């Protein structure tokens, strides 16, 4: 009869306690380290977030000349006087002499000014800023009122309008064969003031209910009464500032 082996007791097993404890300790140490790293990162982030960035202090006007470029021209020097005189002469030529027109394209407003004095304020219609493309020819038009300084070069009463190609393309109509077919009466109102930019003018409108909105093809449309004032007070050669 064979003998049965002795039952295995816990004491006979290889001792697992200390190594398990060690690995648990290692894990805890890792977790702690992770927490420390994370905490440090968060604290650094908060610190940098609070202490890094652009900040703005009031400009002390009384001492603001410290930020100025050093004056290069001594005020009493003869060369400076000469330079100023030369500049004043040049400015006299470039400045508008009498009345001038200011056109605000964004707010559809026109001011007739004499220096700082406003003689007339009118609600107008400027360029719609829309785009038209002719699929057949590939031509493209952008209906903006141009920005800059212009001049009234011609004044016309009961003006006729020679419709350009875009007028027919926009309405999907065939282009007229003869020039006379393009001429339309009454479209520009009672008067037209031509600018020194081909095709652009200040004129009246049939669409008076749309004054104040950007609907034109680049011209400046004015209501009937305001146009009458402009006709009277704006001579040829008047400067027109469009912005």
């Amino acid at each position, binding site marked *: 009869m064979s003998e049965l082996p002795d039952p295995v007791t816990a004491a006979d097993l290889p001792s697992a306690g200390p190594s398990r404890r060690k690995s648990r300790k290692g894990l805890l140490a890792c977790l702690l380290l992770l927490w420390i790293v994370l905490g440090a990162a968060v604290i650094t982030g908060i610190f940098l977030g609070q202490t890094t960035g652009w900040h*703005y202090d009031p*400009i002390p006007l009384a001492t603001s000349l410290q930020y100025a470029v050093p004056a290069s*021209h001594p005020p009493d020097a003869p060369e400076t006087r000469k330079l100023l005189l030369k*500049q004043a002469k040049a400015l006299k030529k470039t400045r508008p002499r009498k009345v001038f027109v200011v056109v605000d394209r964004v707010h*559809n407003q026109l001011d007739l000014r004499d220096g700082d004095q406003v003689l007339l304020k009118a609600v107008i219609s400027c360029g719609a800023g*829309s785009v038209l493309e002719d699929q057949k020819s590939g031509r493209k038009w952008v209906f903006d009122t141009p920005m800059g300084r212009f001049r009234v070069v011609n004044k016309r009463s009961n003006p006729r309008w020679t419709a350009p190609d875009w007028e027919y393309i926009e309405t999907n109509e065939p282009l007229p064969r003869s020039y006379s077919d393009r001429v339309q009466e009454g479209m520009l109102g009672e008067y037209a003031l031509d600018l020194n930019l081909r095709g652009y003018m200040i004129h009246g409108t049939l669409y008076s209910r749309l004054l104040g909105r950007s609907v034109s093809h680049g011209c400046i449309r004015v209501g009937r009464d305001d146009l009458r004032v402009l006709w009277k007070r704006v001579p040829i050669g008047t400067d027109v500032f469009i912005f």
Partner: protein
Amino acid sequence: MIQNRTGARPEGARSVLRSGAFWWLGILLLLPSACGRQDVPDAAPAPDAARQVQAELLRGELAGGGQYYYELRLAEKRIHLCHSGISIRHYAFSDPRLGSSRLANLSRQRDEPWLYRVWRGTFLEPANSLQRKQIIPGDERTRPTPGAAGVIPPTMEELIPVPDDFRIQCPEGLAILVHLNGPIPYTFVEESPWAKRWRNFQEAFQWEGPDQIRLRLEMDGATGAAFFRSYAEKPDLLIIL
């Protein structure tokens, strides 16, 4: 030698004490006035002849350029849109401030003069781009007629959205931040405060120091929107007192 430390004080010590008392009295008298100091209005100094000449020369140079330009007048607190030496429009602002970049609380500023100087070719960021409409040939809706009401066409105010914070940038190293207060008429774009903070943080996080001079202005919504929408193409900017 042993000095007598008792009895009446010598004359020298008395005078020292007296003068000390006077000092204390003086300090006590000055203290309330120092603590309760009234804010002296921050008035701009009257520009001297040299500055006036400098401003005139710069203005003259810009006026002869035949282009739109802006004049930022700090003391007047207005930005003028000018052409040929005349002011076409002006826009009021408030609270002009000078920026400095901070990195971990270390304040850094670009040390370069920015006043009485022309800053060339400025532009807006974000740009005042127009949301253009495409005309469909033959479509009456995109083309109003005198008789029919049609669709009311949009205005430029509706076509150009305005952000509540924008900047005038200059490639030469200047940025003017414009913050709009109050309602902005018609279309506008609003950036989240967190996005603004993050951008502010990112822009300051440069080891080599700030690459630009920064100013900050505030405008009311309507004025700022008008300024933004009408901003000229690459205008020069003159900053004067």
